[in-house]
């Protein structure tokens, strides 16, 4: 039998559609593999084996009965724990929500269920999506499949690792300042942060409402497009959801696979995101990719975004400010854990305080305190107000850049995956890791990360970030698919085929052969 876990989602969809394999087979193969590698990777906080197999069996039965199903019907998917799911705990990686099962599905979850995808479980993340390494998960970190001593990125390290370790062909992520793209970069996978408002946030446990966006985490650009088409589009339950009629992202990705798709495409290299502090191997792979693009007919030029230097500072005011308010609801009154103070009277205020003290981790507390301060009377204008002005300036930088070029590129992250603990003691170093991804969130524009090779010095994946104007997500998919094809042709293989086999099983290396 074909190795099922190595397949892309689009390949699996084909095998399922023509009856070569059943969804139960596909689902069971992934569940078995999860069993085998989870002790090392810890990508999941919850695996819903029985529910997944039952759902798969129902999809198989309906297909057998001749029902017309969607393109991804029967394909398994992992769901970031930030998304509310009716039948699985939804903790956002926090102790304060331990065991909480929401009474509703997030809109994106409902959409993947309606499209008959098979939810495998919930993936690990930094608590409330605050972090770039999953080290801030209350349930222990996720390990990078490329090197188990290293971080898988964050906050969506669980979704990226699950996809990179072949535990799931698809995953859902959320990206507030790079939480989809940076993990994709450091695990050699693909991640897309759609245009703000392109995908519903209803049921996504909010970190920073004006920055959060849900998006696909996959191993190929085409798979990301297929998933984007399932989850995207207007949702009346999210007031910031755009009412646009979107083009097919799948068709856009397929267009990128045609000959000459890169010819004449104007690609801008952001001067401010191509310099100091970047790991040499990251810079090297980036330069090589630009050379390949030029050779393929793209017009590469440098553009400047002078205000990007303020982006991290602005982000770390806006995010904590919004988060301090969004996280106020975790008070033990209606849901989640409740902790009584050790002594003294049990007033609601004291129980709230004791619960939040015990339920939130240090990074969450740090940001709540920062945000509370930034919004305080007398400081609001200087901090939150100024940060919003920076945001406007960054949007103008992007607008000016997109007057000159069709797309912007940069390395997704300044470095490859770092070792556990390396930046834990220095929050600023951790925050600066997101310097490349944050501007897209501040401006609401779409961004994608796709693999552009391994850094020579450590053999770890390096990601290429591509950004397009707001609403031009389709352009990302066309360009991304073309670049992916170009690079893989250059290498002669996919990047993930170079990942080391995980200790407990050799099955995907031996059964199906090299990808």
């Amino acid at each position, binding site marked *: 039998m074909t190795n099922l876990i190595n397949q892309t989602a689009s390949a699996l969809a084909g095998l399922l559609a023509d009856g070569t394999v059943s969804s139960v087979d596909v689902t069971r193969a992934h569940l078995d593999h999860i069993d085998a590698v989870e002790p090392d990777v810890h990508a999941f906080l919850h695996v819903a084996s029985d529910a997944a197999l039952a759902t798969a069996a129902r999809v198989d039965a309906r297909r057998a009965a001749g029902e017309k199903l969607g393109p991804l019907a029967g394909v398994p998917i992992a769901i970031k724990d930030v*998304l*509310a799911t009716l039948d699985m705990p*939804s903790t*956002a990686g926090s102790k304060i*929500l331990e065991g*909480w099962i*929401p*009474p*509703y599905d*997030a809109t994106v979850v409902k959409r993947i269920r309606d499209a008959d995808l098979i939810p495998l479980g919930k993936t690990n993340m930094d608590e409330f999506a605050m972090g770039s390494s999953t080290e801030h998960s209350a349930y222990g970190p996720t390990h990078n499949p490329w090197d188990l001593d290293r971080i898988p990125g964050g906050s969506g390290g669980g979704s990226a690792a699950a996809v990179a370790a072949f535990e799931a062909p698809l995953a859902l992520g959320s990206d507030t300042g790079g939480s989809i793209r940076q993990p994709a970069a450091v695990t050699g996978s693909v991640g897309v942060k759609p245009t703000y408002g392109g995908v519903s*946030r*209803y*049921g*996504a*446990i*909010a970190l*920073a*409402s*004006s920055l959060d966006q849900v998006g696909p985490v996959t191993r190929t650009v085409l798979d990301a497009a297929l998933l984007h088409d399932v989850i995207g589009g207007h949702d*009346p*339950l*999210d*007031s*910031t959801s755009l009412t646009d009629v979107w083009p097919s992202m799948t068709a856009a990705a397929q267009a990128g696979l045609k000959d000459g798709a890169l010819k004449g495409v104007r690609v801008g290299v952001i001067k401010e995101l191509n310099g100091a502090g970047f790991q040499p191997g990251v810079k090297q792979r980036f330069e090589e990719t630009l050379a390949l693009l030029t050779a393929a007919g793209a017009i590469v030029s440098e553009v400047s975004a002078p205000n990007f230097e303020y982006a991290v500072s602005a982000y770390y005011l806006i995010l904590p*400010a*919004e988060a*301090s*308010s969004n996280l*106020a*609801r*975790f*008070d033990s*009154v*209606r*849901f989640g854990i409740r902790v009584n103070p050790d002594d003294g009277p049990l007033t*609601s*205020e004291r129980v*709230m305080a004791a619960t939040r003290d015990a339920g939130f981790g240090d990074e969450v507390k740090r940001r709540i305190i920062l945000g*509370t301060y930034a*919004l*305080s*009377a007398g400081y*609001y204008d200087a901090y*939150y107000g100024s940060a919003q002005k920076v945001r406007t300036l960054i949007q103008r930088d992007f607008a000016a850049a997109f007057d000159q070029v069709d797309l912007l590129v940069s390395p997704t992250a300044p470095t490859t995956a770092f070792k556990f603990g390396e930046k834990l003691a220095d929050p600023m170093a951790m925050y600066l890791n997101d310097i490349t991804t944050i501007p897209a969130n501040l401006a609401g524009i779409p961004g994608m990360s796709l693999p552009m090779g391994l850094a020579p010095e450590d053999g770890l994946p390096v990601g290429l970030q591509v950004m397009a104007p707001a609403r031009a997500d389709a352009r990302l998919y066309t360009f991304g698919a073309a670049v992916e094809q170009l690079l893989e042709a250059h290498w002669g293989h996919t990047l993930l085929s170079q990942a080391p086999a995980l200790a407990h099983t050799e099955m995907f290396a031996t059964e199906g052969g090299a990808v």
Partner: protein
Amino acid sequence: MAAKAELMDYDKALELFEPVLGFEVHVELNTKTKMFCGCANEFGSGANTNTCPTCLGLPGGLPQVNRQAIESSIRLGLALGCEIAETSRFARKNYFYPDTAKNFQTSQYDEPIAFNGQLTIELESGRQVTVDIERAHMEDDAGKLTHMGGAAGRIQGADYSLVDYNRGGVPLVEIVTQMIEGAEADAPEIGKTYVAAIREIVKALGVSNARMEEGNVRCDANVSLRPRGSNILGTRTETKNVNSLRSVERAVRYEIQRQAALLTAGGTITQETRHWHEDTGVTSAGRPKSDADDYRYFPEPDLVPVAPSRAWVEELRATLPEPPAARRKRLQADWGFVNLEFQDVVNSDLLDVLEATIAAGAPAQAARKWWTGEIARLANATGVSADSLVTPVQVAALIELITDGTLTDRLARQVLEGVIAGEGTPSEVVASRGLAVVSDDGALIAAIDQALASQPDVLAKIRDGKVQAAGAVIGAVMKAMRGQADAARVRELVLERAGTAPAESAE
């Protein structure tokens, strides 16, 4: 319970100080659904049944703005003479309290939907006072806490508290006045009349059920005292949730007397909220409130700005009903009521039914007499509102039967009872109970002749010109007819039979 503070005589307080007022009135809108979700906006449902992830503040819940609530807010703003913002934004007001599911209230801060209004009210003395409206902004209501155990449902000493989020997320408009100066001794009445005017306006607009007893209209009254001759404002107190017109008046008066006594004794006023105690008629200290209270307002990122088009605003302006004060003036003139009569109608909240009754054909005075008289009496006796007993059309029909002679007032009262008992329209009750005035002259003449025959001395007196003697005969006839006769007609016939009036030609 709160002890009564030292109070200064009211007139004395006014001699020494000038009261300065300000009011915040919260109006609960009667939209079908809540402000930011699709849950029913209903009073009296089972606890926590009208809830969803959004109004329960569950993780992942997001708000959606209720268009009807925006429309109602704009109409209310227009009725208060406000400007309507071209773009208006929601803001989060952050504070922790268990009745506030999100631990922030979604309100408006620096960009309210309506601002710069004016409302002119008229006091009983005829004095006109123009209250400047600073703003009217939209926000969501909190849930309801019930404190269990401990004393009298108060949070202090309670064993635990229950929270019902059915009210959480119900749309509110908060109307904030500018500082009201120059109120002088009228201050309490200004408070009462202002709140009454707001209540009347929201009722006329149909945007709220306007029942103060159900909390549809709630008033926070700010009072401070300025020493005579000083131009420095005193420290204010804010008495929260004063929920009847009479209480507004009493609370303002109480605070003036309390603050005056305290200040004169060398004390200082604490800037704080105060609770009003309906039963004892006193206020007690709530929580300290400083101008530096920090709610960390910031624009609500989960909602986009509300930008009502000018065309829509004008469309809504065209739907505004006549301002209640103007309407009252017009109706009083149309109906020809003297002030006391009209006040009686207004105070009994009978203006609408009276107008409808008159529109259904009843003469104004008769309509007033029935509604403020017999119907109000029956309503009082049963503890319900007058307009829940009978409809204006039924009352008009009843009056019509009196006018055309079918019923006497006494009979009409019996018919009214039948109508209230659900026996049908007035005509149906007349028929089924056999209550019509006997207008068959034959039957009356027979009874008169019999009465005259049995009282020959009376007949002689009448013939001597002592017409008042006819009363005895009329009484006997009415008794014989068991009251179902028109006394005026009986009198006519008695005089006629006695030979002092010309017989009708038909005889």
